[in-house]
């Protein structure tokens, strides 16, 4: 047996290039369909988990998918606008508390999410350091934001202008970081949280500026109309909110008409959630309420369909690969007819010759299977994060 093993290993060593190609091809066709299955399943699990944790979302009429992705993952680039008055309307139904979300603005690559303090308790988010945002202009950042931007409590984070060409637009707002969230393995790790009123300041709906009644502001006053001062555009506005200038910040117009992107209604039980759903579906045409799990599940149906097409394609490739492998083995056996003759002439039995010939096939199949199993295990463990790096890169 030792002789056979020696001869077999010598053969494999001598034909390693050919065998490596075979192993590579067979490993790929064995690993790919399973890997796709794993990644799609894990993706689906991630998506559905967040959607299940946020069963209802309210937003402006439009695509339910964009509303769900935006309010769950803060990824919408130009979210549709909803009036803040809708928050009060949801609460007035008595079926749910309403958590506003306004995710239009960004700080570099990270979304700035304007919300209320209820969001943190709703998501079960814990602070790793610092405290919750209490004042206008304060920010609490996710763990990945803190890590990648090297920010901590006391550091400032600056909102990014929506357009570099908007010279007359709103100045970036410098916000002190007062808290850093502990990792939650969710999109919350990659968000900057502020009070919804702070996002209105970023948008320019609220601002702080010098007191127009003071002597030094005379040059900025266009005219006085009764009890109203009309100021020109040169009024110096504050681009950071401090304890000294906090009281000067104010909003022009009614907050009920100010924009938000979505509302997460938090119903105390399933019955209240069903009543809220019925209320909005039957009585309101100007807003939409979506069951995010259903929307994400529909999206995943599409993902699964695409996955099935890919798997079918790979199955065809696998058949072709198997055929080519068979041909390679067949030709290899043909080429080794002289070797078989020599072996029988030097006294090898028929069984020993057959075992030696089968060594090549068994080695290739076993090695490919082991490699594919290893890759599948790695995919299960690290595949989704590798995909993340590849896609985000």
């Amino acid at each position, binding site marked *: 047996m030792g002789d056979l093993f020696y001869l077999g290993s010598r053969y494999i060593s001598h034909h390693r290039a050919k065998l490596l190609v075979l192993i590579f091809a067979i490993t790929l066709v064995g690993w790919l369909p399973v890997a796709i299955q794993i990644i799609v399943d894990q993706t689906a699990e991630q998506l559905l988990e967040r959607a299940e944790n946020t069963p209802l979302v309210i937003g402006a009429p439009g695509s339910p998918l964009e509303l769900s992705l935006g309010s769950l993952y803060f990824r919408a680039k130009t979210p549709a606008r909803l009036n803040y008055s809708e928050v009060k309307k949801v609460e007035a139904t008595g079926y749910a508390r309403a958590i506003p979300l306004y995710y239009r603005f960004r700080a570099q690559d990270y979304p700035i999410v304007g919300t209320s303090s209820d969001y943190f308790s709703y998501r079960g988010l814990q602070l790793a350091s610092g405290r919750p945002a209490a004042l206008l202009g304060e920010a609490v950042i996710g763990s990945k934001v803190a890590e990648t931007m090297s920010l901590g409590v006391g550091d400032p984070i600056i909102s990014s202008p929506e357009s570099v060409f908007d010279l007359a637009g709103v100045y970036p707002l410098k916000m002190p970081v007062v808290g850093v969230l502990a990792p939650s*393995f969710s999109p919350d790790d990659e968000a900057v949280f502020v009070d919804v009123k702070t996002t209105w300041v970023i948008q320019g709906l609220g601002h702080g500026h010098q007191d127009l009644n003071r002597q030094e502001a005379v040059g900025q006053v266009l005219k006085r109309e009764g009890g109203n*001062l*009309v100021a020109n555009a040169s009024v110096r506005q504050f681009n950071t909110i401090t304890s000294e200038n906090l009281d000067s910040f104010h909003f022009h117009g009614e907050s009920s008409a100010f924009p938000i992107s979505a509302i997460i209604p938090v119903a105390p039980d399933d019955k209240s959630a069903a009543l809220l759903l019925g209320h909005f579906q039957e009585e309101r045409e100007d807003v939409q309420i979506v069951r995010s799990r259903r929307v994400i599940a529909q999206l995943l149906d599409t993902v699964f369909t695409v996955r099935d097409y890919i798997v079918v394609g790979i199955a065809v490739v696998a058949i072709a690969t198997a055929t080519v492998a068979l041909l390679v083995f067949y030709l290899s056996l043909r080429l080794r007819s002289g070797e078989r003759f020599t072996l029988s002439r030097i006294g090898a039995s028929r069984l020993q010759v057959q075992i030696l010939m089968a060594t090549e096939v068994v080695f290739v199949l076993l090695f490919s299977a082991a490699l594919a199993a290893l890759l599948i295990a790695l995919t299960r463990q690290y595949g989704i994060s590798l995909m993340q790096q590849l896609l985000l890169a």
Partner: protein
Amino acid sequence: MFNFRHYLLLPLCFCVALVGCGQEQKPSHKRAEAEKPYIVAVNNPLYYFADRLVGDRVEVRLPVPDEIDPAQWQPSVDELLQLQGAELVLLNGAGYSPWVANVSLASGRVVTTAEAARPSWIELEGQMTHSHGPEGDHAHGGYAFTTWMDMSLAKIQAKAAASSISSRWPQWSDDVSAKLNSLLADIDDLDRGYRAFATIAVGRQLIYSHPVYQYFERAYGLEGHSLHWEPDIMPSDSQWRKLSDGLGSRALFAWEGEPSIEITARMHALGLQFVVIDPGARRSEADWLSLQRANLSRLQALGNIGR
């Protein structure tokens, strides 16, 4: 339902799902704090209403230090965090707590008790507003905020507090409703008492120590002139002179609090009758209802003297 645009979202879908590889935390539908639930009120009337409506079931807090007028109170960050942890934050409305505009509080927990009476809010005269450009929206001026001195508005505020408590704890709604009826009956008694005084005070010249009686004046037809006098700070001679120059024969001076001995003596010297009408905004040993009943007792005594 899905169009081509949605297929383009598939890579995005992968990206967003791939953001986290660990187990996402489950949302908590209950408060994370282990602390017992509590209600925060921003002034003494609201503290009294809430305390009477919930009884011993929930703690009601008035975080304003005793020495500070709740209308002037500016909460610290620690106090704001206490407000964020409250199940309900009872605000007065009419610009009573202007700091609310610049702090982070969940709107679902905040109840502006005088909101239903917004059309009745009294806009202050002489307040400067401003706009940025002729077409710009105006920033608001101010409102008079001692709304509860009009007992019809106090009832609206009590009802708003009761409604928010019942919504938050529906299991107690019957009991809250019964307690509200009792509270409203007491406020009605106060209303009748003030109206009775108003009939006696017809034709009298009324001077108020501070501009905090606007709703009281309007509700009971007791219009007068408001000064900015503190009961424990002696006004200057010129202020006294100005006051005495405009005094009629049946003038009545209303103080927010008991004036000092020196001021009292000066008032007696002028022959000026005065009375304390305490709005009861600050926490004191006596509750808000007792303070209002004490007001009525003093006014009633004044009426008897007047006769």
